[in-house]
Structures are given as structure tokens and as C-alpha cells.
């Protein structure tokens, strides 16, 4: 048996009290593709960052080609032939592909960009990339940028490539292209570690699968000898049918009309294009789409945080039946109209909460303005904090703990707890279970269902299609800022949604 290209033995890494990786083992041979599988927050990226020299392990050993090594920096990682392609690209927009590739290289002799471009072409040809070395980064699509990142690593002679969720930003067609390239690299003897949490991709590309769960090493299985069910079980601990409850909407009435809204962002890109839908009371409306298809902007537009180019947003007051136009109103103006709109934004600590403030002061965000006194009143918020902590079982030393000290699930409970305490008539939640463990996720689903039963119009932006299909009454699919379909959640089909999510980019490009 040949020596593996890279072996990790008992790697452990902690951040404060959080154990991100505990005794992880991993081994990759030459010409092998290993998939690193795990839920959000299971420690995949941390582990890879240690191989790439970004973090330093607290314990454990790394072997390259059989000899033990110490990787102290990304530069050190390069010397061992390790290259990582990060989820967020690190490219200079104004430079061409070749210039980005050459950046930071200290080669002897005269700098010749034409020669770099030629070598980029060679690499492209060898592995089947499709790239113009002279094209500027800002003119490139996401998949082209990713290609540049991969070439950058290959150009530096990497033999071990790490790809951190490379398919998260790609359409299915682009993913197929990437996989073809990866297979060519494998034939060439490269070792590849690919991080993903899409099971069908794992099954189609990898030779072996390493599964992590909550920072711990669960095991390694041969891809040929496993299936989705087994991998899911390894990933989540026990086999779970989602079984999210879904009640029939009662006395459903139109609550919010969104009609033909358009929005252009700072870069001049149309992020919302003629969006029209209706949110109804006592119903959960799911929004599906690849990340960055306009979900964030849509919710922010309704919440009064975006200046729209056109269209209207009309709220129907449940008590009076009166219609209010919310378009281009500020959050304060919307509240003053008597619209009880709650919003759980995607960025919990950067938008929904203040990380350095304690739970009480975070509860106060929504209510501090009440009353004419110049002083804040902390009694109400303190009671609310205690109530949220006990009702939602928030794990915290107490209500005066800064929320940034809490775990992701508890942070989310604090945020959702505050938002539903305002007795909303419309509740918007963007990726409310992202990074949460199964139990916390279910707690959040239950809260949303409870709001639905109370007659709230719930808008739920999700990423897991299984959850959307089991939880939502209707599912709106966004693609590149357009609505590509609104389906009934009870008979929606996963592949149908997947198709709608990618239709626009497939059709237009």
C-alpha cells in the first residue's frame, strides 16, 4: 500500500469554550477524492483551515507523504503542496485572471505576464477548465472566479487541493463542469478534499467520505459502499424523518400584497425584478432559492430597509381591513402605522441583535422608545428576557450575559423570542435555523407553527428543501431576483423546486 498524501491524526482545536475539532482523523491518497461531510457548524472548515495553515491545531499531528510536518502559515502550507480554495474568493477585482494568479509569487527573473497567461492556458487545457486569462475578475461570473482560484492553487504546484463548499454558489450545470475538472485532476494524481453538505454530490464525486458531527470524528466510509441514508445517519447521529408538523391554515386571509417590486443594488445589479406575491394570515409562505437570489433584499424591502425602484407593498390591517402602503417607509413609520411586522434577519448578531449587549438590553431594542421619559425602562425588558429564557429554554448563565457569549441556537431563540413577543401579524424569518442543531431547529419550527396557528402571516426563507416542503403551506421560488414559481407545499416535489431555483440562470446565460 502506498503512503497517503496527507494524514491527520487526532487533531484537536478549541476556541474559548467551544471545541471546534476533537480528535479528528483523516487520510487522503494520491489520486483520491475525499468528501468531508457534516452539518453547518460541525467543524469542517476549521479542520481544513488547519491544513491550510490558517489555524494552528492545539493537539495532534499532520503527516505529508509519510513524514510529520508543522504547518505554521498559508505560505508553509504551499511549501508542502497544499492549496485551499475558500468559500469567499480572495481575488483582486480590477486585475485579470493571469494577474491574480501571478500575484504574490516571487519567481526569479523578469516578470512576464504573457508567460503566466500561457501557463494558465496550459493548466486550463490539461484539466478542462474554460477560462480567458486576460479577462478581468469583475467581468467574471461566480463560477469563473472559482476557476481562477483553483488555477491559482494549481499554478503554485499544489498536489493536495481543499475545496470549501465549492458548489454552494454554483448552478447544477456549473457543478457538473467542476466535477469533470476534479475527475481530471484525480487522474493526474492530485489529492482532493471537498467540503460539502449535499449528499448527492458526495455520492457522485468522492471515493471516500469522512463524516464530522459537532466537531467530532464520526468515521470514514467508502463511497461505493454507502448510500444517502447511511450518510445522513452518520451526519445527524440518528436516522430522522423530518416529521415537522403542519396544520391546515384556518381562516386564512390576505395580509400582505407585494406587487411588482424592483430593486437595484449599489453595483447596479437588479436584485429584485418584478416580484409579486401575497402573504396570507395563518399560513407559512416559504421562500426557496440559491443563496443570494434576492431573499435578503426582499425581506429588507418589506421591513423598510431598502429603497425600491418600483412596485408596491400593501399591508391589510386585520382589525380594520384598511390598506396601508409600506413602500419606502422607514421601520419607524411602518410601526407608527400600526403594522405589527416582526423580522428575524439572516445576520443575527450583526443586525437582529447587539452581540456585546446582554439579553435584557437586546429585548429592549424593540421597546425602549415607549413612554415619554428620557430614561429607559428596564423592568419590562427584564421580565421579557426571563420569560423568553424559560419559555424557549435558552441556555445562559442569566439575563445579563452578553448574547455573543451564547451558542448559535440560543442566540436565535433570543432573537425569535423578542420578535414574536411583539405579537406580530406578519413574521418574516430569514434562515432561522442556519447553524442550529436538530433540537434547536425543531424548537424554531414549532415557534413558527405556533405563530401560524395564531393567525400570523409567516414568511420563512429557508435553504433546506426538505424542511421547506414539510413546513410550508406554499413555497415561492426565487431565482436571480425573479419569482420562478409558487408551489403548494403539500404536493411540491424537491426536483421541481430545484429546477425552478436554477431555471433563470440556465435559461438566460
Amino acid at each position, binding site marked *: 500500500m502506498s503512503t497517503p498524501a496527507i494524514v491527520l491524526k487526532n487533531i484537536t482545536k478549541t476556541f474559548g469554550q467551544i471545541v471546534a475539532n476533537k480528535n479528528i482523523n483523516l487520510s487522503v491518497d494520491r489520486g483520491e477524492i475525499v468528501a468531508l461531510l457534516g452539518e453547518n457548524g460541525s467543524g469542517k472548515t476549521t479542520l481544513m483551515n488547519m491544513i491550510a495553515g490558517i489555524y494552528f491545531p492545539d493537539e495532534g499531528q499532520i503527516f*505529508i507523504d509519510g513524514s510529520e510536518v508543522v504547518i505554521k502559515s498559508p505560505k508553509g502550507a504551499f511549501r508542502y503542496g497544499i492549496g485551499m480554495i475558500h468559500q469567499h474568493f480572495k481575488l483582486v477585482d480590477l486585475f485579470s485572471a493571469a494577474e491574480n494568479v501571478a500575484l504574490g509569487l516571487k519567481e526569479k527573473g523578469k516578470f512576464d505576464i504573457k508567460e503566466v497567461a500561457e501557463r494558465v492556458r496550459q493548466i486550463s487545457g490539461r484539466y478542462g477548465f474554460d477560462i480567458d486569462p486576460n479577462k478581468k475578475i469583475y467581468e467574471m461570473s461566480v463560477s469563473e472566479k472559482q476557476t481562477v482560484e483553483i488555477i491559482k492553487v494549481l499554478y503554485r504546484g499544489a498536489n493536495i487541493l481543499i475545496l470549501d463548499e465549492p458548489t454552494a454558489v454554483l448552478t447544477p450545470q456549473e457543478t457538473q463542469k467542476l466535477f469533470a475538472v476534479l475527475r481530471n485532476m484525480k487522474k493526474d494524481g492530485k489529492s482532493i478534499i471537498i467540503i460539502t453538505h449535499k449528499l448527492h454530490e458526495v455520492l457522485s464525486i468522492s471515493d471516500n467520505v469522512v463524516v464530522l458531527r459537532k466537531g467530532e470524528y464520526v468515521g470514514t466510509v467508502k463511497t461505493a459502499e454507502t448510500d444517502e441514508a447511511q450518510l445522513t445517519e452518520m451526519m445527524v447521529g440518528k436516522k430522522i424523518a423530518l416529521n415537522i408538523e403542519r396544520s391546515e391554515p384556518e381562516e386564512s386571509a390576505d395580509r400582505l400584497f407585494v406587487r411588482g417590486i424592483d430593486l437595484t443594488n449599489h453595483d447596479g445589479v437588479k436584485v429584485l425584478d418584478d416580484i409579486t406575491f401575497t402573504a396570507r394570515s395563518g399560513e407559512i409562505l416559504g421562500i426557496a432559492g440559491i443563496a443570494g437570489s434576492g431573499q435578503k433584499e426582499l425581506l429588507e424591502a418589506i421591513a423598510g430597509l431598502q429603497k425600491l425602484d418600483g412596485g408596491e407593498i400593501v399591508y391589510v390591517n386585520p382589525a380594520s381591513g384598511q390598506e396601508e402602503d409600506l413602500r419606502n417607509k422607514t*421601520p419607524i413609520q411602518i410601526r407608527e402605522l400600526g403594522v405589527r411586522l416582526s423580522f428575524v434577519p439572516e445576520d443575527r448578531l450583526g443586525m437582529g441583535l447587539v452581540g456585546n449587549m446582554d439579553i435584557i438590553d437586546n429585548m429592549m431594542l424593540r421597546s425602549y422608545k415607549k413612554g415619554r421619559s428620557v430614561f429607559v425602562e428596564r423592568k419590562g425588558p427584564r421580565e421579557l428576557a426571563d420569560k423568553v429564557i424559560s419559555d424557549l429554554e435558552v441556555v445562559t448563565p442569566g439575563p445579563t450575559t452578553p448574547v455573543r457569549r451564547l451558542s448559535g441556537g440560543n442566540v436565535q431563540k433570543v432573537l425569535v423570542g423578542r420578535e414574536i413577543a411583539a405579537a406580530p401579524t406578519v413574521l418574516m424569518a430569514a434562515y432561522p435555523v442556519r447553524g442550529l442543531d436538530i433540537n434547536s431547529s425543531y424548537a424554531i419550527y414549532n415557534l413558527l407553527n405556533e405563530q401560524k396557528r395564531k393567525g400570523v402571516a409567516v414568511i420563512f426563507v429557508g435553504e433546506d428543501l426538505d424542511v421547506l416542503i414539510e413546513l410550508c403551506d406554499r413555497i415561492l421560488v426565487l431565482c436571480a431576483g425573479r419569482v420562478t414559481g409558487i408551489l403548494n407545499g403539500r404536493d411540491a416535489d424537491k426536483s421541481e423546486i430545484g429546477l425552478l431555483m436554477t431555471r433563470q440562470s440556465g435559461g438566460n446565460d
Partner: protein
Amino acid sequence: MSAPKKIHEPPFHIVKRPAIAPWKALLIRAIAIAAALAVSSLVLFVLTKKSPFEAMRLVYEASFGVFNKNSDRGFFAQVFTGRRFWAMLQDLCMLLVIALAVTPAFKMKYWNLGAQGQVLFGGLCSVAVMFYLSSGYWETHKALVLLLMIAAAVAGGIVWAVIPALFKARWNTNESLFTLMMNYIAIQLVSCMINVWVPTGSSVMGVVNQNTQIGWLPNMTFPEAWGMSPSAKNYFFNIVIVLVLTAVMFVYLRYSKHGYELSVVGESVNTANYIGINVKKVIIRTLVFSGLLCGVAGFLLVSGTDHSITTGLDRGYGFTAIIVAWLAKFNPLTMILTSFLIIFLDRGASDIAMNMGFNESVGDIITGIIIFFIIGCEFFINYRIVKTHREG
């Protein structure tokens, strides 16, 4: 690509601490201060060949006066009747009031480096009132002059602070550069006005209204009657006003809606927008308050202490105040301690320099060493160093 030869594993690495026990944090700070004293004693010893204890005694006496063992009066009586103690309190209060002034802006993460200019311009407005209203009607209406001086100083401080704030709110200009440049304008304006007011061309403005004492904060007689130093009466007003302002600022930041809003803006503009706080309004309102306090500081320095103006009216406190506020983590009550620390060191260091025939820079070196240790120890409070241990 051949792997390089064996690289030695770093023997230590840095790990972020979870919440630290208060006593541990206190211990680390105590160690830092002890280390700072040791290092600065060593520096002094090298420079002066005098024992560190001798130097420390000088530092102490610079703030608390010489203790006379043979006197029949007790320790506290000696301190309170000493001139140096009251002079130290006066300096402390002036530094403290400017630190209070920069605090709300810094808490909002608005990097106001213009306290110097705001104090100077406030002081200049104050002196102008004092200078022009110095005779006739005003001799019998001294209280009115004082009120006008306060109003002028406050208005001046506010104008100087709000101009950069408006630009920041409207065009998102960089407030650090803007406020720094405003300092230079204020300094030049003061020089210019001194030349206008002092036609002899000496460029030094003498004490204004020496005989009439118009626009001077009144001297209190009771501190002396109570057996305090004669200096106490000069500084009494300043000290009381600053202590009141400290309490006001503490309450403002912790219990008022304004204070809450500016904390939210400082922590995250996104959150502020999300919750519907008008960020521009908060920036401007906070800088009005900040400028107002700088104006008050300018007034106190002019009316309570100097009775004149120079370009050095603020004594460099405009920048030192920022350190005071940071060290105290923007808690006004803690700022009393941190400004004491800075003033104590500052006075001690300049006394040592004078006694031993060095110039002021020695003082700066010592103060620098100590601040370095105090700020540096924050690293050990947030992180710990772990010895790398290996297995297998």
C-alpha cells in the same frame, strides 16, 4: 516541490480565553502595574543612579506633598492642607472633564480626535466675552458675564464638534482626519486673536481682568475656613462642577434613551437601522453633547484656572483624555481612577525631571512605559498562552 527540512513546532501558541474570573483580571492588572514600576525604576536608576525608592517618593510627593513626621497634624490633615494635593485634583478634574466629553462619541465608535480644538475654541469664545465685557456696566454684573462666558464657550465647543459630525452624517467623511484638522484651525485662531488683543506683539495674553476679576469663577472662602489649603478655594468650583458632570454622564450613558441609542449605533449601524434608529440624528446629537462638554472644559480652564488663553490651554489633555476613556472602558466612574493614574504619573515624572535636571521628556518616557504595560496587559486578560504539547 520538495518538503523543507524539519521545522520546529512553535513551543507556545495563543488561545482566546472564555470569560475570565474578575479576581484573575485584577491580578493580571496588578502584576502589570508592578512590572511597569519595576521597569521604570530601572530606567530611572540607569539615568540618575538614584535608588528607585527615592524616585517613587518623589512621584508620590508630587501629588500628595511632603509628609512631615514631626508635625503634630495627622497624615490626612497634612495632605488636605497641602497645595500639591489640590493642584493635583484640579489637573485630574480638567483631564476628567475632557475624557467625559470624548466618551459618548467614542462609545458610538465616532473617532473624535478634535477635543483639543473643541476645548480651545470654547475657551477662545469664553475669553472673548471676558475681554470685551471688562468695564462699566459689567463691573456690577459679574454673574451675568459668567453666564455669557459659559454660553459662548458651550456654543463654541458645539460648533467645533458638530461641523465634522454634519459632514460625517451627510457625506460619510472620515471624522478622525476632519477633527484633527479642526484642531489646527483652532490653534491658529487662538494665535490670531491673541495678536489682535495684544497689540504689543508679544503674542502672550496676560491675565485678563486682573484687578476687577470679571469673568473669574469666584473664590470660595469656606474651604480655607475648614482648614484646607489656600489653593483649595481657587479650584473648588472646578472640582465640584466636574464631579457633578461625571455623575450626569454616568447616568446619561447607562440609563437614558439617548445613551442606549448611541451604544446601539456604536455596536452596529445595521442593527440601528433595523430597529429604526435615525443614525444621522444620533451622530449629530451625540456630538452636540460632546462639544458642549468640551466647551465647558474650555470655560473652566479660562474662568476657573488660567484667566487667560494660550494655544496650550488644553494642556495636551485633548489626546490624553482618549487614553483615560479607553482605559476606563468608557465608564465615567472608572475614569476618575484612570485620570488619577495618568495625572499622578504625569506630575511625578515632571517633578523627577525637574529635581534631577532632566527635561520633560523623561516624564513622558516614564508615563509611556507605564501606559504600555497597562494597555498591554489587556492582551493577557483576553488571551492565554498555552504550551504546545504533543502526543504519540
